[in-house]
């Protein structure tokens, strides 16, 4: 049989060794546990609000629900603000602090800063949710030009994000101090791979906070009558927006590192140095690749558009390298323990553990999402795809399929350790990622098709007085069905995590399935590890197919267009 032999060492949960993740979390000081519970809870609340807003939005777009225009766009604003800002940033801050505290082994340093950060972020959360629900709908980018006659909405909206930014910076400062503490005490001389990645991540969070301040402080000042109208908001937003894309992706890869070790005992067989280089590569490759968000800007010259496209080709370098490190380490370790078969080694992974299931399906979603992301980054295709439903069609694969499932996987491991209770119905939770992915694939396939046909991304009534193509409402109905499916399955996962968070110590935590595949790098034999290269080859092949299809389509349209840039 193409799997690891039955007599291979299994079920020795690596995280429960003396230095394991869950042991370190369990022994954190009580104030740190309280802070982490608060942040995890707030992040989950943001996810629930965002999920509800997103589902209602999808159903409205599918024609199943009707809202007044302003209410519909308020829902869309709530969805975006809740998920893309508060869920993703709150969970990042919480995970950073939890992992940094566990890495330190003695809890958080600069604890007052961490608590102040939490207070600022939660205040920002309340402010943002309130103004999103009651003010002029500004969508999640809070564009001031939408409310020139309503400075109050612009100002309060900006204030929410500024509080979030300040809180992020304070949390990250605490995380950095925590990571540096063992070195200052002389207990260690250098970071391990995870410690280094946490340090870089914390630095990026501060950069993100600065970018948010840069984007939203002018709006607040204008609303207060203390500054000019923020006419450059669009450009400042793009800088933040790009950061918002890739910071959670870096966090995801880091969580994969941590969970891989926790679930299988495997660390990189390529050494910590290569992992550090890969995490540092986010700093090198991500900032220069931001131009593709601006391909439709009329002020962007053709030359910049071409250069922007070329640079964008490098945006996946650190993520794919990290993927290759993890997969090759897992496969080589499995083969060192006797696994055989081309892909059979994967069957030995602890799939009944919901953290493993979430992480595994997250990888599947990443491959699908990357395929279409690389269609979008080509400047010549932007006039056909940007600002259409193609964009939400593919990025939900990332936002839900990759990021959210990965962060939920982390919570499924950390929360039982944090509070001492068991994970709620692990067998049921382990089945959800496949359902989430099925719904997402339907959502993405229909959404990408709809976007390619021109369905705009932010329109609720796509009838256009009967002039729109007949296929548009059909595709959007499929989007609604896909959204309903993944929202239902994701709700079960979220419910399980919330129940675990709230369960306290009503029952003792039980060990979930794990394997112990760790081998010393010197024991890695001559066996090949083809899963990584074959996966990436398949990914590139899919990118070729869909890119060529998009080029063929745009060339077949009954129109020839030249230019589109700045006239004079």
């Amino acid at each position, binding site marked *: 049989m193409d799997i690891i032999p039955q007599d291979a060492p299994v079920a020795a949960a690596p995280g429960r060794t003396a230095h394991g993740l869950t042991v370190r979390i369990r022994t954190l000081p009580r104030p740190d546990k309280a802070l982490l519970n608060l942040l995890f809870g707030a992040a989950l609340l943001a996810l629930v609000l965002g999920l509800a807003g997103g589902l209602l939005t999808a159903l409205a777009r599918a024609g199943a629900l009707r809202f007044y*225009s302003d209410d519909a*766009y308020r829902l869309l604003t709530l969805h975006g603000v809740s998920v893309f800002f508060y869920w993703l940033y709150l969970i990042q801050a919480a995970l950073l602090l939890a992992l940094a505290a566990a890495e330190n082994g003695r809890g958080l340093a600069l604890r007052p800063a961490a608590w102040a950060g939490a207070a600022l972020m939660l205040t920002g959360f309340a402010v943002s949710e309130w103004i999103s629900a009651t003010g002029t709908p500004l969508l999640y980018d809070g564009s001031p*030009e*939408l409310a020139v006659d309503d400075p109050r909405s612009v100002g309060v909206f900006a204030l929410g994000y500024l509080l979030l930014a300040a809180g992020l910076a304070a949390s990250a400062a605490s995380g950095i101090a925590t990571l540096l503490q063992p070195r200052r005490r002389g207990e260690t001389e250098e970071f391990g791979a995870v410690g280094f990645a946490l340090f870089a991540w914390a630095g990026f969070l501060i950069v993100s906070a600065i970018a948010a301040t840069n984007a939203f402080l002018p709006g607040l000042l204008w609303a207060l009558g203390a500054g000019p109208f923020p006419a450059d908001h669009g450009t400042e937003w793009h800088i933040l927006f790009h950061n918002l894309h890739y910071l959670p992706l870096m966090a995801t890869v880091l969580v994969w590192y941590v969970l891989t070790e926790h679930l299988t005992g495997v660390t990189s*067989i390529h*050494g910590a140095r290569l992992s550090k280089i*890969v995490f540092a590569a986010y700093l090198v490759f991500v900032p220069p690749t931001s131009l593709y968000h601006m391909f439709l*800007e*009329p002020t962007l*010259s*053709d*030359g910049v558009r*071409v250069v922007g*496209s070329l640079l964008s*080709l*490098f945006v*996946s*370098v650190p993520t*794919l*390298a990290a993927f*290759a490190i993890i997969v090759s380490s897992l496969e*080589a370790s499995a083969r060192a323990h006797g696994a055989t078969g081309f892909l059979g080694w994967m069957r030995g992974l602890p799939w009944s553990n919901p953290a493993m299931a979430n992480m595994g399906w997250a990888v599947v979603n990443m491959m699908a999402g*990357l395929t279409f992301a690389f269609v979008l980054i080509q400047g*010549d295709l932007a*006039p*056909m795809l*940007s600002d*259409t439903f193609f964009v939400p069609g593919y990025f939900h694969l990332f936002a839900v399929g990759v990021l959210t499932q990965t962060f939920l996987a982390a919570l499924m491991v950390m929360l039982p350790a944090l509070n001492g209770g068991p994970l709620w119905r692990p067998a049921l939770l382990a089945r959800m990622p496949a359902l989430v992915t099925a719904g997402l694939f339907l959502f993405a396939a229909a959404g990408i098709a709809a976007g390619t046909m*021109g369905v*705009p991304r*932010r329109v609720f009534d796509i009838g256009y*007085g009967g*002039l*729109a*193509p007949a296929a548009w409402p059909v595709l959007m109905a499929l989007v609604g069905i896909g959204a309903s499916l993944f929202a239902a399955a994701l709700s079960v996962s979220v419910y399980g995590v919330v129940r675990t968070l709230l369960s306290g110590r009503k029952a003792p935590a039980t060990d979930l399935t794990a394997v112990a595949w760790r081998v010393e790098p010197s024991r*890695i*034999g001559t*066996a090949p*590890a083809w899963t*990584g*290269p074959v996966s*990436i*080859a398949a*990914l*590139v092949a899919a990118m*070729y197919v869909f890119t*060529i299809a998009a*080029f063929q389509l745009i*060339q*077949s*349209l*009954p*129109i*020839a*267009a*030249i*230019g589109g*840039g700045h*006239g*004079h």
Partner: protein
Amino acid sequence: MPDPRHFTTRRGFIAGLGFGAVSLYGAWAAYGAAPLPFGHTPSAARASEPVPQVHDHGGSAAGSHDGHPAAATAESFRLDHEAFLRTYGQPDGSVDPHAASHAGGHSHGTANGSHADGGHGNHIAAAEPVTVYLMAQRFAYSPDLLRLKAGQAYRFRMMADDITHGASIQLGMASRIVRLRPNIVSEQTVTFTKPGEYLVYCTVYCGQAHDAMQGRIVVV
């Protein structure tokens, strides 16, 4: 001592895999969307390549607009746009740049030079792009119904009057989008190759009636 590991588990190979997606460059270069080491740049290729289904473009990419000085402003655009509507407006509310001038041709001294179509109506050579104007404003396009001809090149001059809008032309299997920023004039030379009635709609959320912001281009 040689490394006993298979090459798929060696550091260099793993690091190289990270660059896998960069190979998509090949597809881009094949479609002229990326520069080749010893070839011309994509923009040069675009200017010289025969455009599918089009007889003659004669148009210009942004930045080199025949006869248009480079100092036109949003205000001059507004004047030209108003003159365009006045000159070619039809009784049914549509605008037809090929129709005989209602106002006897352009009467204003346009700040951005002479229009290829100014006062010439149907006598324009097909090779010469006809200038048309499109203003986007909450929550409509002006004009909202344009009558054009298949095979004729049009120099679309477009601007948003108030806040950012989009203008997407629905073309059957896909659409073609431009983003319009307030007071920034965008130009695109467009040739419709098939007759039909094409929906134009806004792709950038612009407020309460965003969903209703639409227009039509009728191509004969």
